């Protein structure tokens, strides 16, 4: 089976998932990100002309503020023309199909699509459909993948920990519904992290999750012991009651990240969260705002990583 993300020369054509990304490409993205961190921070030059004259369409079939904004900023800092489309409130509600929408935008000479959709595989479908000079970046599809989030997480880990091969990483929370978790797991295992743990009650774990190369824990105490990195996941409001979990309170009591629990991890452990956080549900405020937290730097790096991906794709035309 061909890797749908790579062109026939093995270069990155689309960014759809961290699964199956070759290590050199992953490392290349992280290296480029480093070079954009300063541009992104706005401390030196505000803009670079790498995407000058290119049109980037943010195609969001599912609402998002943070991800869309960071993509928009990233594209603008690369001098691209950016068009934001909240499709949820326009075409598909008029009956237009996903691919018709894409065809119409291609006719407007789109060079790049940044796609978020509630169905797993939506970005793959678009990538298969568009002309070879058009690039697709998956900004989250269903429960499947959110590769730029995982890449910014990898950059954050490398920034603080330097290497991957000596780390123990725990991912905590709703793995079942999380595209972020899946993308993190693939990126971590590809980059050579020897021990990736997932910690969650059985109702929030997909079946056969161990086949993804992780160790499964249901208890925070052994799960967090001696880890270098704690990656928290957001618990969606609609999951907090009903048949998955009895209540947010009980979840926090057993799976919330508190200072006491974090003390089980290594002394220099970092705490990450893709946002937006539910304080007092999955994470205690004292941890979120505490010395181990790298949650805000993650957001800053998020812009740089998206600049890196976009410039790389544009260079592979």
């Amino acid at each position, binding site marked *: 089976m061909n890797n749908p993300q790579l062109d026939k020369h093995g270069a990155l054509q689309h960014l759809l998932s961290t699964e199956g990304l070759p290590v050199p490409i992953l490392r290349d993205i992280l290296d480029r990100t480093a070079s954009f961190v300063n541009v992104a921070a706005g401390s030196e030059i505000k803009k670079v002309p790498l995407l000058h004259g290119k049109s980037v369409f943010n195609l969001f079939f599912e609402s998002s503020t943070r991800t869309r904004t960071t993509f928009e900023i990233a594209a603008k800092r690369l001098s691209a023309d950016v068009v934001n489309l909240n499709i949820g409130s326009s075409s598909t509600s008029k009956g237009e199909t*996903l691919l018709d929408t894409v065809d119409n935008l291609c006719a407007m000479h789109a060079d790049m699509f940044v796609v978020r959709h509630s*169905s797993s*595989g939506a970005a793959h*479908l678009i990538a298969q459909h568009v002309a070879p000079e058009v690039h697709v970046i998956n900004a989250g599809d269903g*429960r*499947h993948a959110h590769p730029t989030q995982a890449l910014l997480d990898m950059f954050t880990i490398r920034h603080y920990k330097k290497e991957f091969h000596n780390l123990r990483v725990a991912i905590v929370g709703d793995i079942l519904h999380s595209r972020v978790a*899946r993308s993190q797991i693939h990126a971590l295992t590809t980059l050579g992290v020897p021990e990736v743990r997932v910690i969650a009650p059985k109702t929030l774990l997909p*079946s056969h999750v161990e*086949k993804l190369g992780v160790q499964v824990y249901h208890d925070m105490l052994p799960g967090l012991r001696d880890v270098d990195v704690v990656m928290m996941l957001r618990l969606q409001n609609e999951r907090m009651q009903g048949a998955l979990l009895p209540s947010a309170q009980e979840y926090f009591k057993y799976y919330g990240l508190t200072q006491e629990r974090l003390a089980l991890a290594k002394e220099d452990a970092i705490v990450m969260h893709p946002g937006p956080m539910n304080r007092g549900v999955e994470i205690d405020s004292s941890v979120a705002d505490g010395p181990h937290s790298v949650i805000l730097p993650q957001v800053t790096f998020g812009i740089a990583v998206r600049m890196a991906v976009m410039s790389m794709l544009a260079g592979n035309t």
Partner: protein
Amino acid sequence: MNIQIKNGRLIDPRNKIDAQQDVFIAERRIAAIGKAPQGFVAEQVIDASGLIVMPGLMDVAARLREPGYEYKATLESEMTAAVAGGVTSLSCPPDTDPPLDEPGLVEMLKYRARSLNQARVFPLGALTYGLKGTELTEMIELTEAGCKAFSQADAPLTDTRVLLRAMQYAATFGYRVWLRPQDSFLAKNGVAHDGEVATRLGLPPIPVAAETIALATALQLARETGVKLHICRISSAAAVELIRSAKREGLAVTCDVSMNHVHLTEMDIGFFDANCHLVPPLRSLRDRDALRAGLKDGTIDAICSNHSPVDEDAKQLPFAEAEDGATGLELLLPLVLKWAGQERMPLLDALAQVTINPALLLGQKIGHLAIGAHADICVYDPNSVWKVEPAALRSQGKNTPFNGYEMQGRVRYTLLDGQIVFQQ
């Protein structure tokens, strides 16, 4: 018209014939096998040298989409596809729009099918009104109109008391109930087998327990009521085992499997191939192997195409949103041959799965070539190799997970009631 099919290798599973024998047809029926009857003058001779002559195939699950879904397929298009695939008899599930829950609808379908004069159509009646799972249909009236059994198709029947009553009522009159076992709560929103692939791709899962729980319920109620139960499209190793032990116990239960599940697994979904969005979902390799073992030891009684033509637009969507189903009538024979080849199974045994076995499930005197039987015949070239190209399929449904597959075995002639209805 008198027809002689000469020099072919005749394979008739029911009559245990696998030999070079000529077939003589007169007055729409088999007049003789081997030697011409006295005074027989052939008006047409089909030279079947190098070809295999077998009873026309019987497919127990082919959706024709009429009435109601003519944009997906029509009786004309699908009957043409059937005979091109050597299928001369088929039964269609009642999930049309409106569902086959009234005698008038069944009569209309039978009439339309008959006037096309291609394959024989044996409709399944709806077990409950509108397939809603609450009120029983008029089974006697529907039977008189031509229904051969009663089914919920893929519609849920969650109320077990209604299911019990439906089985009791059907058992009263000796009608067979066909069920595809699936617990609708466990399968809710699911689109793929609850396994490694669904986990990796983030597709909402359908656990095996959705099948086994509904199957165990159906078997238990069959025990209580004595109804003749047919289980449709089993997909898992655990379901094969439940049916195997029910048969051993002597329960009047039969079952079928779709050709898709004989060949494919969850791995074939690859990167979200919507052609593999099927109902039931493609399961693991272990499940597929168990289905094949079930076919070998007689636990499974028939292979069907589960032909479900879908219009192109409905597949051009993300996996979970794409409509389930695949075309199949034209692929049934080559896929049965492929399976037989892979399992080194004698054709006499393999072809029983698409001829006499399904005919017995419907209680029909078809699916074989004894003297006096309807001359429903398929003549195919076992050496013809071809590639599945959607545009070349006659079915209006062009979607198939076997797109691009190489097939061996191609239908040359199809005869229905002693008349050539297809040749190439």
